[in-house]
């Protein structure tokens, strides 16, 4: 079967508007979380978020593009530009019929849809909304596949294109989808990853309603504390990561620098509850075991796990149980961390940002810490790498994701020296 590797990485994250700034931030373990600045959050239970200081003009987007594109599309473009540049691909010399796009997003253009709704409905007064005051191209925000189109047009990618929207596993699943397209010979290169910009009133309110997000409004930098006994929920974030996923021989033939191989991917659904998780982590464990099988690894081959680690009690225990079930004793040896402690939970985007982190962990030999993990939850009794980064040779990194709808996904990135 054809194999796929990562040859480019681009990131826009809170506290880090580029791959290198992002990497420095998560290694430093310094949370990029603050009071919501894009609207007045006073009326909300959770008033904090991991925001990006994102200026699309700085990334070369034109005024027309900025006007046309929702923030999640702008972030996707910014990180994709970085990834494509990083890959060294000369787009003029690749067969663009074999170049695909697979973008993930959980909630798409909610900011634009909400802003325009407020106008069309006269501040919510009218059920039958008025089209006469809304923006042109609003359809592009209704249907988020327009973001995949923007990427395809930008890079002249004539291969398969789609948006994957499996809630909070969209980021892993978009890369998994790209991996499948390459394995099956449907494409040679896929620009893959995910973007979400969900910090808007309706999204903040919907997580308030189920008390999923942290109300620790007075201490934003301490609010995201996965696996810590003092956690009170996740902190909403935003951002994007795009990876260039390339068929191995194609990458070798052009002498590309290879970060890692996409060694294994698997997804399962818990068939249990849209938001609830079974404490035994059974299905996430199944996904992990299947991803490990596909990568032909034993549990003790793993050098790092990028946890879903959202910082809800339910998730952290579910996930701890899944690692124990899937990896046995090795679960106690392998360093695990959650970068959501630093950059929050950007819904669909975060899975791809965590895969970007795994690509960098494998290539650079440093494990980023879990910030704010000062008093571990006794039920989360694995090595969650508290507070301080570690140097470690990591041949294989696993990332796990879990989301609303019951989706459970796992992916393994392996060092290129292990590739051949």
């Amino acid at each position, binding site marked *: 079967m054809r194999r796929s590797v990562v040859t480019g990485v681009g990131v826009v994250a809170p506290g880090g508007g580029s791959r290198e700034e992002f990497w420095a931030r998560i290694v430093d373990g310094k949370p990029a979380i603050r009071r919501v600045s894009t609207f007045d959050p006073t009326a909300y239970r959770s008033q904090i978020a991991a925001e990006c200081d994102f200026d699309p003009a700085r990334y070369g987007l034109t005024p027309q593009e900025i006007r046309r594109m929702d923030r999640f599309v702008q972030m996707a473009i910014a990180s994709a530009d970085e990834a494509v540049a990083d890959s060294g691909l000369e787009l003029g010399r690749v067969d663009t019929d074999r170049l695909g796009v697979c973008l993930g997003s959980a909630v798409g253009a909610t900011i634009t849809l909400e802003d325009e709704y407020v106008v069309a409905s006269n501040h919510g007064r009218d059920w039958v*909304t008025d089209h006469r005051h809304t923006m042109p191209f609003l359809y592009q925000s209704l249907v988020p596949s327009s973001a995949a189109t923007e990427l395809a047009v930008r890079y002249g*990618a004539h291969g*398969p294109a789609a948006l994957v929207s499996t809630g909070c596993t969209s980021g892993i699943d978009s890369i998994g989808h790209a991996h499948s397209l390459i394995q099956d010979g449907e494409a040679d290169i896929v620009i893959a990853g995910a973007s979400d910009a969900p910090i808007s009133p*309706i999204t903040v309110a919907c997580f*308030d309603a189920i008390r999923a997000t942290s109300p620790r409004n007075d201490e934003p930098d301490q609010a995201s504390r996965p696996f810590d006994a003092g956690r009170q929920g996740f902190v909403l974030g935003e951002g994007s990561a795009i990876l260039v996923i390339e068929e191995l021989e194609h990458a070798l033939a052009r002498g590309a620098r290879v970060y890692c191989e996409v060694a294994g991917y*698997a997804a399962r*659904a818990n068939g249990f509850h849209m938001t609830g998780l079974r404490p035994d982590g059974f*299905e996430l464990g199944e996904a992990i075991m299947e991803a490990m099988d596909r990568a032909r690894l034993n549990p003790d081959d793993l050098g790092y796990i990028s946890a879903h680690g959202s910082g809800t009690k339910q998730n952290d225990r579910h996930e701890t149980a899944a690692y124990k079930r899937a990896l046995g004793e090795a679960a106690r040896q392998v360093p695990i961390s959650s970068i959501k402690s630093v950059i929050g939970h950007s819904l669909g985007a975060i899975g791809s940002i965590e895969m970007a982190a795994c690509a960098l962990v494998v290539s650079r030999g440093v494990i980023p810490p879990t910030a704010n993990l000062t008093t571990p939850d006794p039920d989360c009794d694995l090595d969650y790498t508290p507070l301080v980064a570690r140097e470690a040779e990591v041949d294989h990194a696993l990332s796990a994701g879990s989301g609303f709808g019951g*989706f459970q996904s796992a992916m393994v990135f392996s060092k290129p020296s292990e590739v051949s």
Partner: protein
Amino acid sequence: MSRRAAITGIGVVAPTGIGIAEHWENTLAGTCRIGPITTFDTSGLPVSLGGEVPGFDESEFVPSKLLVQTDRWTWMALAATRLALDDAALDPDREYPFGLSVVTASASGGNAFGQREIQALWRDSPRAVSAYQSIGWFYAASSGQISIRHQLKGACSVLVADSAGGIEAVAQAKRLIRRGTGAVVAGGTEAPLSPYALVCQSSQDTLSRSTDPATAYRPFAPDAGGYVPGEGGAIVVVEEWARAHSRGVPQVYAEIAGTASTHDAHHPTEPPADHRQLARAMREAVDRAGCSPGDVDVVFADGSGDVTLDRHEAAAIREVFGGRRVPVTVPKTMTGRLYSGGAALDLAWAALALTHGVIPPSVNLDAAGGGHGLDLVTEAREAPHLRTALVVARGTGGFNSAAVLRSPRHQAA
């Protein structure tokens, strides 16, 4: 590839009917279900026509507890799923749950549900937003609910590619079957006929402004004036070929013999300059099906209703099929364009056509096809030797997808 994908069950919830019997009967009669939108007052909008699903009673299919958590689009997906599973005589309770998956396409998510909650926020207060907003509106809601309801615990997915999404879902089902999954519930539905969703759609000038149901959506006509949106869609059961036969399925409608996707990558909002990528999607789907264009007996066209896009599609068909005038049909002229539900419904139509040996008609068109040189099927046409169908779908922005379905009567199991 040794593991082949077969369609063993079909569930339709569409303007043409609920369930395949009603749907097929109305199809053969050429019943056009495009009409004035009845669920709210459209008099202030530039768009007033839609394809509604008449007589859809969600409570027949969805328990009341679940109704309040979900949008109409998910109700239709749950209903179509149940119909498809029943049709395939597939009882997930008797199956290994990790061997079953669901893949749906969604273009716009839970429109009416989301509008109600966002109205509550802006009219009342953030605290008026329902606890179910976080699970009712987002694009993954239907796949999630179907997975939970029927215990489909394998790799599940949600694909967004505008109106090409239905083919993308089935293509993904085929990939999963190849990797070892036993059966996949796949397809798409859409519920775009709510006020704010319609405002968003009306920003496209390709949405028909006509008020006459008989002329509003006339793909390939020289005076085509855009498309009419519709609701509903179809879900099919895609099952591994040998497994389907060994469990004695009631029927195999068709093999999903090949799929392919391309993108025009031309302009985010303008039509492409030519039909090159659309033709390539068709050719690659045919190639991957292991056949040649000469084997294709019927084309279910995308039929956008936009003069430029229609011209491209006709040119692509002429290019792929050379001098041969293959029968072309656009049965969605009866329903309007259902976005994610549209290509899924076309796949259902194609599978039923192969089974019954009848090509469904395009309505409101003349056979001359507006001078495009196509053999447009404008009345149900008997075709007893129908063996291979090509289904074409495009999504706004430049998505091109194609799928080849092949009748099981003409191949060894």
